[in-house]
């Protein structure tokens, strides 16, 4: 389509973050348009492990710990609602997950980190520390190389593809989803904003940047900056196996369909989302050390994906001071935080302003002069 259309809210980015915000706006009766770049995008929403993850998040930032913990607690209700609206099973399970440690030092350091975190957070989360024998009681398959673990009953996982599909399906009933609409530019236009795509132009009262790594290019148009960088992760998935892994492990989980999906690598490789043999080898070795029976499983696919990482790993939520009505939303944990993005954040955005509680996530924190 050519010509010009108007909308109240332009949400730029059709991944889990943008779709959660758009779904939330539509749920509160707002007219929203969701612009999705297409398969040329890096699509962190389609390359991730699907963890709903609490333990260890927010070390050094209690506001992030609280945000994560509350979102994880809200996941049950969020999933029930989205499942009934969409008819799509999200495969959401929250039975708890382990973080395996392969040395005493690592276990001690992690235990200390988690107890400091517990002391600073206001939303409670329970972590249990256990040795190999303790793990074996819950998970007989654990390898001897695992010295111990921290176990958190708040951790779980969902199927990220089903989540994304459900969000977009429900959004489309009242909102306008624009696939293959790469946004070329977004600019202030009188009281609102103008969005240019190859397939037409839109004017919007408000604009929300939720384009992951793409935010870096779009933010400056609106007097904002998105200091995010790509951090590559490489993932493997096995053939489908009968269910044997009831609990998650930080870097391994079994999907409802039966495939075991695992990956924990972290590389600074720019916009290169390929896989490398050495990292996949190490990943497979670590998985086999954690669960020796995986040596018998065949890996059928591997892929690389790019995390969207801010300087401190925490979310950035902000409104442009120069052009009010333009917002930036960028996080590393779009799956875990989906209930927050679709709920309280979308509610605040629909009112046209962030809540005071969200100011902890302003990018101002990156420009504090070092003393």
């Amino acid at each position, binding site marked *: 389509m050519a010509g010009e259309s108007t909308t109240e809210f332009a949400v730029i980015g059709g991944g889990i973050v943008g779709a959660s915000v758009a779904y939330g706006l539509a749920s509160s009766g707002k007219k929203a348009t969701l612009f999705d770049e297409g398969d040329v995008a890096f699509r962190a929403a389609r390359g991730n492990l699907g963890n709903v993850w609490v333990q260890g998040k927010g070390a050094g930032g209690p506001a992030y710990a609280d945000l994560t913990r509350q979102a994880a607690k809200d996941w049950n209700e969020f999933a029930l609602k989205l499942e009934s609206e969409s008819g799509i099973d999200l495969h959401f399970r929250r039975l708890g997950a382990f973080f395996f440690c392969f040395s005493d030092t690592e276990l001690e350091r992690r235990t200390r980190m988690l107890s400091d975190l517990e002391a600073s957070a206001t939303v409670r989360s329970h972590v249990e520390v256990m040795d190999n024998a303790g793990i074996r009681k819950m998970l007989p*398959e654990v390898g001897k190389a695992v010295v111990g673990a921290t176990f958190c009953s708040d951790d779980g996982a969902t199927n990220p593809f089903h989540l994304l599909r459900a969000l977009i399906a429900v959004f489309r009933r009242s909102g306008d989803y624009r696939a293959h609409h790469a946004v070329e530019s977004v600019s202030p236009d009188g009281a609102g904003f103008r969005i240019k795509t190859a397939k037409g132009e839109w004017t919007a009262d408000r604009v929300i940047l939720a384009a992951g790594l793409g935010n870096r290019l779009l933010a400056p148009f609106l007097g904002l900056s998105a200091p995010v960088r790509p951090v590559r992760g490489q993932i493997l998935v096995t*053939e*489908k*196996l*009968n269910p*044997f892994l009831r609990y998650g492990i930080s870097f391994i989980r079994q999907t409802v*369909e*039966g495939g075991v999906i695992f990956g924990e690598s972290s590389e600074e490789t720019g916009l290169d989302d390929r896989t490398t043999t050495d990292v996949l080898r190490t990943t497979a070795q670590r998985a086999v050390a954690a669960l*020796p*029976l*995986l040596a*018998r*499983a*065949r890996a*059928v696919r591997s892929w690389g994906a790019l995390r969207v990482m801010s300087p401190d790993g925490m979310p950035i939520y902000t409104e442009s001071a120069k052009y009010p009505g333009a917002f930036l939303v960028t996080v590393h944990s779009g799956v875990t935080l989906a209930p927050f993005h679709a709920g309280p954040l979308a509610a605040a955005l629909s009112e046209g302003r962030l809540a005071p509680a969200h100011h902890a996530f302003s990018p101002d924190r990156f420009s504090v002069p070092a003393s």
Partner: protein
Amino acid sequence: MFQLLDPGEFDAAFDFEGRTISAFEGENLAAALLRAGVRAFRQTPRSGAARGPYCMMGVCFECLVTVDGEPNRQACLETVRSGMIVEAQAGSAEIIQ
């Protein structure tokens, strides 16, 4: 449906679900099964629906069978060995420590 363009003397036989299937040593296992009239190579883990080869080139994972006790083998990437025991892959495989 599937016929040999160039009929020759079969020099091998293997077992599929209790049936003896004549074939050529070293030929493609999925092709030999299709020629013998087999359509359901497996039942899916989720719904139990029947599946057979779709791509014939190692990509679709629809033609999974158990070969000599080894589950989840892609029939389109396996070759016939006389005397092999092939079974339909029923759902997902059991992983044993």
